[in-house]
């Protein structure tokens, strides 16, 4: 797959090479951080799963005991109290409060049960008989509900963590399999383009210097040919007097030049 990730649409310049390099560095740091986060969350997640399993078992036992105490109540009261209880329920006495816990940046709610004081809807329930059993049953059920609330908060944490871990893992994978290879590809591309430009430039320079050399060689050859021609001419019709004259003229020329130089100075 990494071959098909392509590269970013940038111009192959040194500036964008620098940008890409810093981007790659950033992506690598982000990847390692996210990976660590994912690991921490997964550790927590496994712990919660184990505790859920335990709590579910415990819930089974607790509810069994509670159901038994309710059976005791209906035996003692000698009739069904369900209807009476349902009708007299008005205000919740048993409530929960949500607290937060921070696990590597993820806020996990934690339910805490508390009882609202001064609310008692069942003051008259079991007034005739079975009051004691009802009292005991209420306590048993209150304990059972506490277990249930604990389980509920575990379950909520489980659901939230599950979601967050999925998101984090998706990000880790995206960085690992898409962003980093693509940035590397881009860097490779920019490097190869820059190398290509370098080679082109070098070749051009070589060409230019080659041309210059050829020109110089041609000019030299011309001069040499001209001299040879002149020499041949002189050899054919040259007299010593003429040569001497020429030499003199040359020396005067040289002097003239020197004079000029002095003037310049």
């Amino acid at each position, binding site marked *: 797959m990494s071959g098909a990730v392509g590269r970013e649409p940038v111009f192959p310049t040194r500036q964008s090479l620098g940008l890409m390099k810093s981007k790659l560095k950033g992506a690598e740091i982000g990847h390692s951080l996210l990976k660590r986060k994912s690991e921490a969350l997964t550790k927590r997640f496994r712990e919660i799963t184990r505790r*859920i399993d335990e709590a579910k078992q415990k819930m089974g036992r607790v509810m069994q005991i509670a*159901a038994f105490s*309710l059976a005791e109540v209906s035996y003692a009261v000698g009739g069904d109290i369900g209807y009476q209880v*349902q009708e007299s329920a*008005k205000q*919740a006495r048993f409530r929960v409060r949500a607290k937060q816990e921070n696990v590597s940046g993820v*806020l996990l709610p934690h*339910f805490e049960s508390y009882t609202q004081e001064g609310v008692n809807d069942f003051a008259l329930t079991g007034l005739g008989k079975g009051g004691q059993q009802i009292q005991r049953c209420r306590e048993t*059920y209150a304990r059972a*509900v506490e277990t249930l609330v604990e389980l509920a908060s575990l379950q909520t944490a489980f659901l939230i963590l599950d979601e967050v871990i999925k998101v984090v893992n998706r990000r880790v994978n995206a960085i690992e399999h898409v962003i980093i290879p693509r940035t590397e590809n881009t860097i490779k591309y920019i490097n190869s383009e820059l190398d290509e430009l370098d080679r082109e430039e070098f070749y051009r320079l070589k060409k230019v210097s080659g041309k210059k050399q050829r020109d110089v060689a041609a000019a030299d050859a011309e001069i040499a040919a001209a001299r040879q021609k002149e020499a041949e001419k002189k050899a054919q019709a040259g007299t010593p007097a003429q040569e001497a004259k020429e030499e003199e003229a040359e020396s005067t020329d040289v002097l003239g030049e020197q004079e000029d130089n002095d003037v310049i100075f």
Partner: protein
Amino acid sequence: MAATVAYKDRQLLAVIGDEDSVTGLLLAGIGHVTNPPDAQRNFLVVDAKTETSEIERAFQTFTQERKDIAVVLINQHVAERIRHIVDTFTDPFPAVLEIPSKDHPYDPEKDSVLKRVRRLFGE
């Protein structure tokens, strides 16, 4: 931080279940009836005659409409009857908790959360 606001005022528990479970939980003090005129109870007693649509409606009300419920307790055999809805409900709030009832022992294989746990660990 919208989620924080969403569950700060969730204080109540709701229950859908057979008469015994509901009675017991009400005795523990979770029963709540909102003020009139639209008095809403946070519990529903299910027996053999209760229509499935009624359970569905109660479940939807507890999970979606009411914003003061933190935990929905539902008997497992009742949850079986509306299993498709319970399974599709995956929001963290309110927490839906399947509880055993007197006549129906608890079966971890059917619990929608435990099913997810099992699936995650590839069992």
